[in-house]
């Protein structure tokens, strides 16, 4: 078995020079200290984003983003499609947990002052991803096209409308007209499944490349520490395996929440 993997690896390595990448990954390490636990929340946010992409694609198989059909198609997903209720419930739970986990991630970066030079760009891309995350939430909330969604969007876009000068045009742009109508639904659907995911993926790519290139941020004072105070573990495979184990736990938590407290 091992020999076959070795063969496949060699075949790709001859063409794509994987060895350099493996070596690079081997060099990255994760500092072990009192606050190490906070290193996991970026990974958890990433995992929840992946969950959103997967469940979102699954929902797209049955959801219809139009004025006449949106509400009915949700009813269809909830009552006719096998496990449709589960997929939808996971999608809304993971959406909320994503914001929670992103906030924990960002607060830990903030309080550890991990955003300091040279990591400003990582922080900025992270900020934009948070805004997009909120945009995902706002646009996704309209898609069920029920009364709650309708009035929430009405109020939400009204808030944009009271901004001086630019408010009105923004509100009209968001609504696709003067009022919340089927045009708004079409727009929000487009933002939710195409525009935001596209931008988010680019930002996420930059964010992850930066994290890999610059390595983990060390807490203040860690650099001067010596001996037993300066512990670290390799990112690959030690930290990654711990990450995966946590992802497994998060998925189980999601399933429990989605089944027993359907959202």
């Amino acid at each position, binding site marked *: 078995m091992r020999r076959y993997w070795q063969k496949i690896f060699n075949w790709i390595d001859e063409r794509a020079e994987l060895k350099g990448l493996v070596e690079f990954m081997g060099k990255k390490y994760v500092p072990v200290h009192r606050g190490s636990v906070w290193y996991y929340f970026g990974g958890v946010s990433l995992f929840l984003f992946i969950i959103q992409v997967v469940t979102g694609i*699954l929902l797209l*198989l049955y959801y219809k983003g139009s004025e006449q059909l949106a509400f009915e198609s949700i009813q*269809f997903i909830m009552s006719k499609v*096998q*496990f449709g209720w*589960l*997929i939808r419930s996971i999608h809304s739970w993971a959406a909320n947990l994503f914001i929670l986990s992103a906030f924990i991630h960002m607060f830990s970066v903030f309080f550890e002052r991990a955003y300091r030079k040279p990591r400003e760009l990582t922080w900025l891309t992270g900020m934009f991803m948070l805004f997009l995350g909120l945009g995902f939430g706002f646009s996704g909330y309209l898609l069920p096209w029920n009364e709650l969604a309708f009035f929430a969007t009405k109020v939400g876009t009204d808030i944009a409308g009271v901004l001086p000068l630019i408010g009105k045009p923004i509100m009209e742009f968001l609504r696709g007209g003067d009022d919340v109508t089927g045009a708004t639904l079409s727009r929000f659907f487009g933002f939710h499944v195409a525009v935001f995911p596209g931008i988010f993926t680019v930002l996420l790519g930059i964010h992850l490349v930066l994290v890999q290139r610059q390595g983990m941020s060390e807490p203040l004072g860690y650099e001067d520490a010596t001996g037993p105070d300066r512990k670290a573990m390799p990112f690959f495979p030690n930290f990654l395996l711990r990450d995966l184990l946590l992802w497994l736990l998060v998925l189980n938590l999601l399933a429990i929440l989605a089944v027993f407290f359907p959202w």
Partner: protein
Amino acid sequence: MSSTDIQQDDKSKRDFLKYVLGGGLVAWCASVIYPLMAYLKPPKQAEVEVSSVKVGKLNEIEKDSGRIVRFGNKPVILVRSTNGDMRALSATCTHLDCTVQYRKDMGLIWCACHNGKYDLTGRNIDGPPPRPLDEFRVIVQGDEVFVSKRV
């Protein structure tokens, strides 16, 4: 206990753990994959059972013409011959499911895909079609024409 006994003991303990963990992993994977697969399977849609469809007014249907009517989600062809007889046939070619049409010049029902030909009673007379077109019933009520399934 001798050292080999201890080794033996360790090995069976390890095997036990391996089976428990491996089995757990397999069961976990199954509990993720099963709902996904079930979700992907499209649910049976309650298909609306159509028993008859209105074609139009009798005086609007010309002699020596054919028209395709949507019957549920299948096409039906209503052919009115030169002498005014009407006949409704399934418009799905029995060869490869293309939709057939009435050809004035031939006085036949013809399939554009592979040059299959049927006479006006739906009998396959030329080309690849293996069997005749299914027949539907034409009902004239007052001046309105309906097509319905044969019972």
